[in-house]
């Protein structure tokens, strides 16, 4: 069993917004708990998928564990070292071990620099290799991400989406990281190119022993690349376990809706269809959408939950004092629901 490289305990990140004169005078602010008490860990050479609707806090987790955003509470341990309170200067040497692939293809690609210069810059952040060494490593990186050397002379604007993504990955690999937070790495790409990038990321993991925190809303892709999957709803993890378990034996009503909404779209897959029809009905009843500003008391999912309706609106679900905690249902599969 490989050891854990990232350990996150009870992490929370609140954003506060001040609105209007009154709150300015009194100092009261409206607080949005983007991430609220999240715990998980990543083992070395493992991929954990993070799924959920937009606004559920996936990206915030990714940014906070890399300390690109400061956590409001909780503990982040990277490779046995508590990095929650490290200063910027103390973080700097650690940054090369933990990198992020951003959703935006153009993020990190300076439009006025050629690909060669972009990679050169990344290679010389932490080291001062000789020119020959830089040239050798640039070629190595290009080979690793399956790009032709002729692209080195191009500007980012002259690259296609897939090529930009590859350059982005090469740039991240340049500092030889161990942990990569991949935030929707394929969402901006076409299906045929998506497949190339997913294959590439899996190859790199095998060859370089990388660890991924894979954030995506594309459920089949997450299931494909991850060993473990965590499902988030309104800033909390509601279910976590092995990818197969989450995909095929989901326990939390939200996970069920999430997976079968996918099945609804693919009505031709007959086996999934039976499940899909029932969901459509449940969905219709479920109505509203997630809203941070008016969090439900008790279980956050209760207002949209079909189980809550089926059970005749039990009081425990909306009880302010008893928000469901993650509990083990076997095989490392944890669920935060009173009834699942």
């Amino acid at each position, binding site marked *: 069993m490989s050891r854990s490289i990232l350990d996150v305990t009870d992490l929370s990140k609140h954003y506060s917004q001040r609105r209007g004169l009154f709150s300015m005078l009194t100092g009261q602010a409206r607080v949005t708990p983007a991430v609220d008490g999240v715990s998980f860990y990543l083992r070395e050479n493992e991929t954990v998928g993070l799924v959920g609707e937009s606004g559920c806090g996936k990206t915030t987790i990714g940014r906070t564990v890399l300390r690109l955003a400061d956590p409001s509470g909780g503990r982040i341990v990277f490779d046995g070292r508590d990095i929650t309170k490290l200063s910027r200067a103390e973080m700097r040497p650690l940054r090369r071990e933990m990198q992020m692939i951003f959703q935006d293809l153009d993020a990190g690609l300076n439009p006025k620099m050629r690909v060669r210069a972009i990679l050169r810059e990344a290679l010389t952040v932490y080291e001062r290799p000789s020119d020959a060494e830089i040239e050798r490593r640039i070629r190595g990186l290009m080979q690793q991400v399956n790009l032709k050397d002729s692209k080195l002379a191009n500007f980012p604007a002259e690259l296609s989406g897939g090529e930009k993504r590859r350059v982005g990955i090469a740039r991240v690999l340049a500092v030889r990281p161990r942990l990569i937070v991949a935030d929707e790495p394929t969402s901006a790409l076409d*299906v*045929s190119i998506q497949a190339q990038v997913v294959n590439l990321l899996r190859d790199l993991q095998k060859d370089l022993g990388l660890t991924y925190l894979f954030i995506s809303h594309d*459920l089949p892709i997450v299931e494909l690349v991850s060993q473990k999957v965590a499902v988030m709803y309104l800033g909390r993890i509601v279910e976590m376990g092995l990818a197969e378990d989450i995909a095929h034996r989901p326990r939390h009503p939200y996970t069920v809706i999430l997976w079968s909404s996918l099945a609804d779209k693919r009505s031709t897959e007959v086996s999934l269809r039976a499940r899909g029809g029932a969901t459509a009905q449940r*969905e219709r009843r479920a109505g509203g959408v997630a809203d941070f500003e008016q969090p439900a008391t008790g279980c956050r999912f209760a207002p949209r939950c079909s189980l809550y309706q089926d059970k005749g609106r039990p009081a425990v679900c909306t009880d302010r004092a008893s928000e469901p905690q993650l509990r083990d249902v076997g095989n490392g599969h944890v669920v935060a629901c009173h009834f699942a």
Partner: protein
Amino acid sequence: MDAPVLSGVEGPLLTIENLRTYFYSRAKRAFIRSVDGVSLSLARGETLGIVGESGSGKTVTALSAAGLVSAAPGVIGGSVELHSNGTRRKLLDGLDRYVRVKEHDGRVAEVEKDERGWRRHAETLMKGVRGKEIAMIFQNPRSALNPYSTIGNQLVETIRLHTSLRGGREAKECAIHWLERVRIDSPRLRFDNFPFGMSGGMCQRAMIAMALCAEPSLLIADEPTTGLDATIQSRIVELLAQLKAETGIATLLISHDISVIQRLSDRVAVMYGGTVVETGCATELLAPEAKLRHPYTAALLASIPSAETIRRKSYLQAIEGEVLDTIEVPRGCRFYGRCSRVTEAVRERCAGLEPPLAEVAPGHKLRCWLYPSAPSGAMHETRT
């Protein structure tokens, strides 16, 4: 209000013939052949799904049909015919006199277009068509709605412009009725909401209400679910399916998400590099066991992770190479460079000559030298 007429008129609702829409890239000093000889037809009450990767010309085809292409030179040839409510309208009629195309070696080398003349003429042809007969919904609903106006006001504006309802109160009732029809909760309250106060899915519903409130005969839905959350996506797809059943509206559905196309379309057109490479009945063409299929369609379907791939954690079958750049269009088949099924017998033809869109089975056409034409029929040079 007049409901869409389903009978009485013969022939397809929309016919696009050999449409060409080019843009000019100043940096490369060459034409971007976004739409290069596309022919499509859409029957009444039918949903035609257009699939293809980005840059394949799906959206530009639809924008050209709706007369919404604004960059130069834009539409340079072809015909678009809309046959609705008993009238036949040629939407590009007589516009060819504003364009002079010089061909060199069989392809467009130079285009002279009288932009202003074309525009003026095109707008007169489009009057009473766009918005009234052809409505559109777009990918990003929030950017298509006016942020400074409540959705109620935007709906009322559309209703007063395109229907016989002129009075404020009547129009408001009609707007609320439409908000109800697109399943927006408490429509009377939502009437006064601004777009920023509503979620993406809700905005898309409002957009759909705006598109349908004039009871158009054709709806162009350009990536209606892209950018929405998984749970919301399936609900919008559900809504579109219900509205189609209720109103019988013909839809041109553009999406790169094959599952959406599968769910909603009767027929499918697969586009690649500005041309239609395959068209046919949706259930047959996208069925997993179908044998007769364009190599591109086959590769596209294979690159989506299937349940089997996921279970075995095997590699995804990616299509090698990049999406065709429509500036340097090859002489032969546009998919030749990425095609994995080229055999020695056809290689020369694949590389040198563009295959025609040939009928390989009734109602099923594809553009590939591996399947030259129907087993019995002679070779067609048809472009439909």
